[in-house]
């Protein structure tokens, strides 16, 4: 894979909007051309080279890898709408990383800000630290959020992660979030998304879930009153056909949405 290296030269005073940093935009460009690409800093347009040292060479989209080094916690929108290739971030990353991605892979070796992987349509986003609120969620006013792809967060995801997620068995699209632990309102308004939590969750998991599966291997404080205990189960079949084995208690819900529902929460027993 051809590799482009970016190194943050100085901390931006205002949030730096860097949606231009994707394999799609870097493909077939030289380092000199990449330095001239535009970023947005407050109400001013700046050059990528003003904030980043650039070296290396690119290839076509699928074969372009971008490695970025530095504390990027005030840099937003990296990886937006990318369709292939790879981005590796060695440091913390700001809001909106990988939003609306269609393909390729982003790895963050640090913490990620809010709205990471928002409205994901494909590809893979891996965060090896904690992530903020609204991970894999829909943006304001959208009632369809993440539709496909995989988000893996080693640490904790913030509130309302996977908000308005929507799967489609017919189209073979199964959005999936795997995380270490989660804050409140995980899977809010879930329409078929699959969520696997290795550890604990907070309150209101699965609020307004229409259908979908939320598997909690750790603990949950009380579930919503609109969830009803069904019984014990030792094998869960995910929407995409994969199976998870272990001792779980199965709950149906959210019954405030429907009297009969395919929505489920499984809590490890």
């Amino acid at each position: 894979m051809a590799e482009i290296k970016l190194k943050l030269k100085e901390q931006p005073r205002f949030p730096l909007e860097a949606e231009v940093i994707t394999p799609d935009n870097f493909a077939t460009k030289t380092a000199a051309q990449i330095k001239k690409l535009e970023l947005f800093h407050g109400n001013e347009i700046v050059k990528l080279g003003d904030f980043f040292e650039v070296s290396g060479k690119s290839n076509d989209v699928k074969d372009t890898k971008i490695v970025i080094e530095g504390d990027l916690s005030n840099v937003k929108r990296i990886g937006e709408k990318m369709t292939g290739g790879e981005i590796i971030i060695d440091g913390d990353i700001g809001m909106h990383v990988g939003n609306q991605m269609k393909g390729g892979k982003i790895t963050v070796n640090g913490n990620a800000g809010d709205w990471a992987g928002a409205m994901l349509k494909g590809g893979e986003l891996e965060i090896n630290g904690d992530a903020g609120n609204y991970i894999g969620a829909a943006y304001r006013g959208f009632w369809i959020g993440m539709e496909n792809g995989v988000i893996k967060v080693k640490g904790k995801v913030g509130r309302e992660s996977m908000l308005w997620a929507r799967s489609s068995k017919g189209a073979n699209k199964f959005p999936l979030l795997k995380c270490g632990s989660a804050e409140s309102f995980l899977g809010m308004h879930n329409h078929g998304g699959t969520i696997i939590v290795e550890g604990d969750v907070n309150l209101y998991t699965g609020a307004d879930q229409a259908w979908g599966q939320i598997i909690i291997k750790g603990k949950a404080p009380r579930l919503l009153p609109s969830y009803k205990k069904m019984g014990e189960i030792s094998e869960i079949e995910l929407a995409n056909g994969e199976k998870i084995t272990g001792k779980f208690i199965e709950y149906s819900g959210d019954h405030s949405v429907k009297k009969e529902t395919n929505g489920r929460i499984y809590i490890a027993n």
Partner: protein
Amino acid sequence: MVEKKYKTFYDVICPFCGTLCDDLEIDVDEKAQEVVEVRNGCQIGTRKFFSSNPSGHRYMTPLIRENGSYKEISWDEAIDKAADILAKAKRPLLYGFASTECEAQSKGVELAEILGGILDNTASVCHGPTLLAEQDVGVPTSTLGEYKNRADLVIFWGCNPVHAHPRHLGRYSDFVRGYFRQDGRNDRYIIVVDPRNTNTAQIADLYIKVNPNEDYELMNAIRATLRGVEIDQKEVAGVKKEDLIKVTNIMKESNYGVIFFGMGLTQSISHHRNIDTAVCLTRELNDHTKFSITPMRGHYNITGSNTVFTWNTGYAYSIDFSRGYPRYNPGEFSAVDVLLRDEIDASLIVASDPASNFPAAAVRNMFKHPIISIEPHHTPTSVNADIILPAAFAGIETEGTAYRMDHVPLRLRKVKNPPGETLPDREILEKLIEKVKEKKGE
């Protein structure tokens, strides 16, 4: 013949809260240009009219801060210096726009766009969550007149109108006779849901004490019960299951119900999801009877601010213009959040008082950068500003349009002239727009 010393204005709109009462009578001493008497207003509205009279608290001329004290300057100089600060800023915050009329709000949009800054109004810390929920699930709502005439079940959830909207109960929701509610109070059943037995709860027919921060679960349980599902728990949010079922049945068996809600839902931990579930509950009740929901908006024209911002930009608050076009994202572009992250480098505060009403950490960061304050009288924000531009009171000293909490637009009156060198907000903003355009070379 007795010479009439005062002029009486009838049907004056009160510029205090979102109830926007339209029946005030104001006596003005025309010679002295002072408000002499206010009839029909509540304590707070009355006080506001009187506070517009000249006093030590009122700004009469533009002021600039030099060496820790304020010096009077001319309008031209003040506008020039203010425009200079704003034009040079790379991420200015324009905030407030609640206690002013619609044309001023529109000018605010124009100025924010030219500056490429962030535009936000007080909904951001108040009923912003209501708007977020409405954007997700809609809002089955109606007007105050309809509620006055039809509602036989009135629920106040997380709000305390006796304190915050004092005449609401007397004009629209409780003690007033309506077309189908000829017996007034006796024709209505009032429910209050609140962690405290507030003064509003004390005059209700049914008070439900809910645990703080647990309203979401209570509404969720009521919705499940409404669907015909029996919940497993014996108690939810401090409310026994049988009481929860009783309330659900009262709701189903009413002829026309309305839920009024306030900060108890928007400012507690579940924020907009409280409203989301309250709206879904209202919608689901319409399978059984007629039900509506209305937020108790605080400032008298915050609804107007949301309306004006929306028809100009497509968005109601927390708008960023830094890319040359409006983008909306509370949490990213909302005033408190950008201040907490120390993201801004100058602020213009209009018709609001963030130094009093924002959490201390946000105020601390706001004070690190230049502040221009468009304000009629001393507030904790204005006494810390670098430039003070003295404003006239909309609804007292200048006309304009304001929107009531139920989106009904009403025309504010002018009962006396702006004192000293004060100008209406819209004129001040227009001057700033012209000067900023000049400085930016347009």
